[in-house]
């Protein structure tokens, strides 16, 4: 049923698709973070109407399988674009994939980012205000860097799991690594070996990513794990409730 020989045989073909997988992962990750920030701020500020819309959107994203979301984008987006006068025939299918995964990421990232921002002690915001900074200045210079540190581990997990999640791209005709494994499977009847190729690559990536995230984590340490002069604080420890993804 399974032969290492086939793993070696398929590997070059599958690794060729790495750029596509990477493109989907990076694209949707960046889109997810950007959009997620906006969603998070809408929810934290409780912007009228938008807040409700975002809540429903996030609930849909959280509760339904990606395949349903992909389907909405794949058939919904052209309808919207057509009505805007865009020639949809010109649009590469990878755009729909990026859009679908980007929106999906945004839903999850939005919640992560919101939780991270809320986990930064309110005293930090107040200190910013008291120092005469505007809301935006406080957000950019004080809250965001600290929230980033809190959100980073979740970002790392989401990012790594995204490599697997892109598997559905082939459903709209974009062949990434897993799509290639599936299509080799369709042709030869041996899908297992293709998946193993993907697993090897993903495992390597997750090891590398872990190093990278650890590095960023250390960069954003703000002296917390460095030498401390005292360890004692009389203030009762506040239990931080970090919501999660």
């Amino acid at each position, binding site marked *: *049923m*399974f032969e290492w020989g086939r793993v070696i045989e398929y590997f070059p073909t599958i690794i060729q698709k790495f750029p596509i997988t990477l493109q989907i992962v990076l694209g949707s990750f960046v889109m997810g973070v950007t959009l997620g920030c906006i969603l998070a701020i809408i929810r934290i500020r409780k912007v009228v109407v938008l807040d409700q819309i975002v809540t429903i959107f996030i*609930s*849909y994203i*959280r*509760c*339904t*399988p*990606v*395949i*349903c979301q992909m*389907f*909405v984008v794949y*058939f919904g987006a052209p309808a919207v674009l057509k009505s805007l006068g865009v020639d949809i025939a010109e649009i590469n299918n990878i755009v729909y994939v990026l859009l679908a995964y980007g929106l999906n990421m945004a839903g999850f990232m939005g919640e992560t980012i919101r939780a991270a921002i809320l986990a930064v002690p309110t005293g930090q915001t107040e200190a910013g205000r008291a120092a005469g900074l505007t809301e935006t200045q406080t957000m950019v210079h004080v809250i965001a860097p600290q929230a980033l540190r809190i959100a980073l581990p979740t970002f790392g*997990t989401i990012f*790594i*799991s995204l490599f*697997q999640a892109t*598997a559905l791209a082939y459903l709209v005709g974009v062949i990434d690594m*897993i799509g290639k494994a599936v299509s080799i499977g369709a042709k030869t009847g041996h*899908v*297992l070996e293709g*998946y*193993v190729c*993907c*697993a090897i690559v*993903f*495992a390597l*990536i*997750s*090891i590398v990513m*872990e190093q990278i995230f650890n590095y960023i984590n250390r960069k954003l340490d703000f002296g917390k794990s460095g030498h401390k002069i005292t360890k004692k604080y009389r203030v009762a*420890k506040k*239990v931080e*409730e970090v*919501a*999660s*993804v």
Partner: protein
Amino acid sequence: MINGDYFMMCLKAAITYIPQNLMMSLITLAISVFVGTFIAMARTYQVRGFKQLFDVVLALLKALPPNLILLIVFIIYNSNFTKIMQVLHLNISIKDVNLMYVAIVALTICCLPGISEVIRSGLMAVDHGQYEAGYAIGLTKLQTFFHIIAPQAIRAVIPPITNSILSLVKATALVNVIGVVDIMNGAKIAGNTYYCYMEAYLAAALVFWVIGLMLEVFSHKVEGIFSQSVKKLA
């Protein structure tokens, strides 16, 4: 564009698979929580050997595509079942065993890393002083864990574990690879009669959404119960 009759047909098909789906999710969850807690404890209490072992195993599991896990589990199960039954002198045919259980094993492997991680963070969210206070009044490690730590960790764990359950319920859509039908594929099989896939997707999405919303409400309730002790008096 959407045909009401077909939609209802797909919806009905999707709904008939809810029990199967929830049962798979629940059993998977139960096993994962049980094993996950064990692993999480080994890692928080830094049990030598186990910790390193689990660190590596969990990292590896995370890298495996779910479909691969499903196929491997299926193939291993299938190729060895009859032999094992013969060795055990049991007269059980492979056909008598519901494939759902094979799916459950695979799903458990898929979601074990995540759930174990969630439980570990829940355990770490409990203040270290709580352990010490338990030891200081003469409780054993186990007594401290069950009476003090676990009840507090549960509260911290509920929101993230709700997420895990949600993704678990959705992940059951993958099991059609090995021939187990769930909500998603039930709807698609129904839709196949008329090629009405649009209705099938929508019906499945609706069912998943409703399940998700109910889970969220439920988890809020449970969280409320476990939060009683930390609510300040008005």
